[in-house]
């Protein structure tokens, strides 16, 4: 790891020095992203860019619950607050079709940046529109997926292990299936540990933005959920409401009702972290992006924590997070912004990005022999990225997302109707959206 770091840093200087040659006038660039741990790492990383290019980097970080609202408003109004935007993967369709993002193909060709150097799943999800075509509107910036972390100290406690064995007939270990995950969480639910009542797991149930959809899809994908029968057909009947999808949704509701702390009816990333750090839960779901910070936490990190990939059920499947970095078409500093992307695409910068806590999607980092052992969650991250699925990335993604937020929250949290009805209604909502879009 040390060699890996030294090599990265020294090569970084050399590479950056050559890549920055010929820089024109110094500009004040603004990069917009969500306010979270990796954003702080990016500030640190970008100091190198400032030193080498002479440009000044400013950052506009918006808290996650308001991120989409704030940034999409900015883009839709043609605002030039952001020169660079690390936008959510689902925005790529709208960003491309509405002309918010600069198409990067010519720039990549001119600068010798190849998308083959990045993990295929991230290129597909973060950069291309229409999906899978070689039309690039972003450079994969931050690979991410929804994963799990747990109290390793509790999982290795002999008394707890014995009680678990007695209760379930199997050894207490990282769950290998979704059903094992639920069983493990139910075991911890309302259990007394160190004189305190603890609960099974914290899962996503947030209503306002995207929370519960991201949580529910973490159950739907392992059950084999598909958005369409045939990709690109928008033929959803029988796919979105398949028996497997219904079973997965019922599973998530059971999880919510039987294995989560009371009061977590509107919880997302922050609440999940709080529940875990305050010692309330044995396990929690959250994005890999938070894992470096969790591991470094003095109270619940280190040898008290471990991580696992979202368990499979009928198949492997994780909900995709992460983002690509795009140049905003309304920026009047596009040359300097492209310069930043060129610098960021450099393998050595990517290596440093991973060291600082960002999740590089560059093959040189991910395929490095030392990568898997470079952090306790690195192997899980690789595994997760091999089986990720993303939500619709259509230009009308916000309508599609809010419809799903409503339908699944109505069913899971508000306990209204059945899973079948929720998914049937979801198809009705989505059909209406695609009809309005002229795609059906």
């Amino acid at each position, binding site marked *: 790891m040390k060699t890996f770091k030294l090599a990265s840093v020294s090569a970084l200087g050399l590479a950056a020095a050559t890549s920055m040659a010929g820089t024109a006038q110094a500009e004040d660039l603004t990069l917009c992203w969500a306010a979270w741990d990796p954003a702080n790492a990016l500030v640190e990383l970008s100091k190198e860019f400032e030193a080498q290019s002479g440009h000044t980097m400013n950052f506009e970080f918006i808290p996650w619950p308001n991120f*989409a*609202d704030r940034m*999409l*408003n900015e883009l*839709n109004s043609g605002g030039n607050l952001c020169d660079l935007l690390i936008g959510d993967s689902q925005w790529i369709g*709208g960003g491309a*079709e*509405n*002309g918010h993002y600069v198409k990067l193909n010519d720039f990549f060709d001119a600068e010798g940046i190849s998308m083959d150097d990045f993990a295929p799943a991230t290129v597909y999800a973060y950069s291309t529109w229409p999906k899978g075509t070689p039309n690039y509107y972003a450079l994969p910036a931050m690979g991410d997926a929804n994963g799990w972390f747990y109290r390793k100290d509790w999982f290795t406690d002999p008394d707890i292990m014995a009680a678990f064995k007695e209760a379930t007939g199997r050894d207490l270990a990282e769950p290998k299936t979704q059903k094992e995950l639920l069983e493990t969480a139910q075991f911890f639910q309302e259990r007394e540990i160190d004189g305190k009542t603890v609960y099974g797991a914290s899962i996503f149930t*947030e*209503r*306002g933005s995207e929370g519960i959809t991201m949580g529910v899809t973490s159950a739907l994908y392992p059950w084999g959920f598909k958005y369409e029968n045939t990709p690109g057909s928008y033929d959803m009947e029988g796919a979105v409401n398949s028996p497997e999808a219904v079973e997965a949704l019922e599973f998530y509701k059971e999880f919510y009702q039987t294995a989560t*702390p*009371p*009061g*977590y*009816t*509107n919880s997302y990333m922050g609440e999940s972290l709080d529940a875990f750090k305050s010692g*309330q839960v044995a396990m929690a779901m959250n994005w890999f992006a938070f894992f470096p910070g969790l591991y470094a936490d003095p109270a619940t990190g280190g040898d008290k924590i471990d991580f696992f990939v979202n368990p499979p059920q009928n198949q492997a499947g994780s909900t995709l997070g992460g983002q690509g970095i795009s140049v905003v078409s309304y920026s009047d500093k596009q040359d300097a912004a492209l310069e930043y992307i060129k610098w960021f695409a450099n393998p050595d910068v990517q290596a440093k990005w991973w060291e600082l806590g960002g999740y590089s999607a560059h093959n040189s980092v991910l395929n490095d022999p030392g990568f898997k052992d470079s952090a306790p969650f690195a192997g899980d991250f690789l595994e997760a990225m091999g089986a990720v699925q993303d939500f619709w990335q259509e*230009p009308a993604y*916000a*309508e599609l997302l*809010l419809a799903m937020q*409503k339908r699944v*929250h*109505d*069913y899971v*949290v*508000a*306990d*209204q109707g059945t899973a079948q009805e929720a998914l049937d209604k979801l198809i009705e909502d989505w059909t209406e959206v695609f009809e*309005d879009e002229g795609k059906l």
Partner: protein
Amino acid sequence: MTDTPAARAAQATPPNVARKIKGLSDRAIAWIFVGPTIFLLLAINIFPLIWTIRLSFTNFKANRINREPEWVGLRNYERILTDSDIWLNMQATAHFLFWTIFFQVLIGFTLAYLINKKFKGNDLWTTIIVLPMMLSPAVVGNFWKFLYQPQIGLFNYIVAFFTGKDPSSFEMLGSVDLAPWSIVIVDTWMWTPFVMLICLAGLRSIPDYIYEAAEVDRASKLRQFFTITIPMVLPFLMLAVLFRGIENFKMFDLVVQLTGGGPGSTTELTSINLKREAFEKWRTGYASAYAIILFVTVFGLASIYVKALNKVKER
């Protein structure tokens, strides 16, 4: 020249201005004065209203500027009025409106009646009672969220103390049955002082000699209350109901902070739903039709109410 205000104003007018307006009719001068106001009114209120009405007949989306909007006639209105989910939002709004106004009037008037009595520390109590309405709704929403927290929330512990229930056995914000009441409680806590102040103004406007005359006539306290206090405070109370009704019809921030419209859509008031349609889903045409329907509803109800209020004042 006589020393009237008009004469003084004429004398104070600079000669060059006086020369320019010389020969203008009173009507023309009046137009010069009201013109800017009318222009602003047209630009800020009337034009957007007309534009919204126009958009409500299209499928325009503000985030799809490149796409030519299509004329869809009454389709948006038809969709809204036949959407069962929107009717549920309307019901949630009606529940919130009715119960907040009911409790605020009841408690607000009672508090005003008590505060109106002369006692030591009267002013201090008035100040303490009006504190909640001075707070930001976002702050109130956030701290009540903590108070309602099932594991550590003070509210749950107080209820548990009186009922013997386990504090974490019920969720004010997470339960479909309790969440609509949780937002009613918070809004009542925050805005009852406002109703109290209006009622207090009404109570203090009643001349003492009316009560003295009633005393002479040997009217009981109860009789005085129902035949003097209530009728004379009624216009003030009705005004408070009008203000709170309009405010709560457009309630957004407090409820978003507390429940985000959940659980499910239980507390998704029409304003929250409208905001989602307009600025999250970007269905501008649809949201315009929705806004027009709400506008007509509020405007219609408020007009009827104001007529009733005027009749009460005339009595």
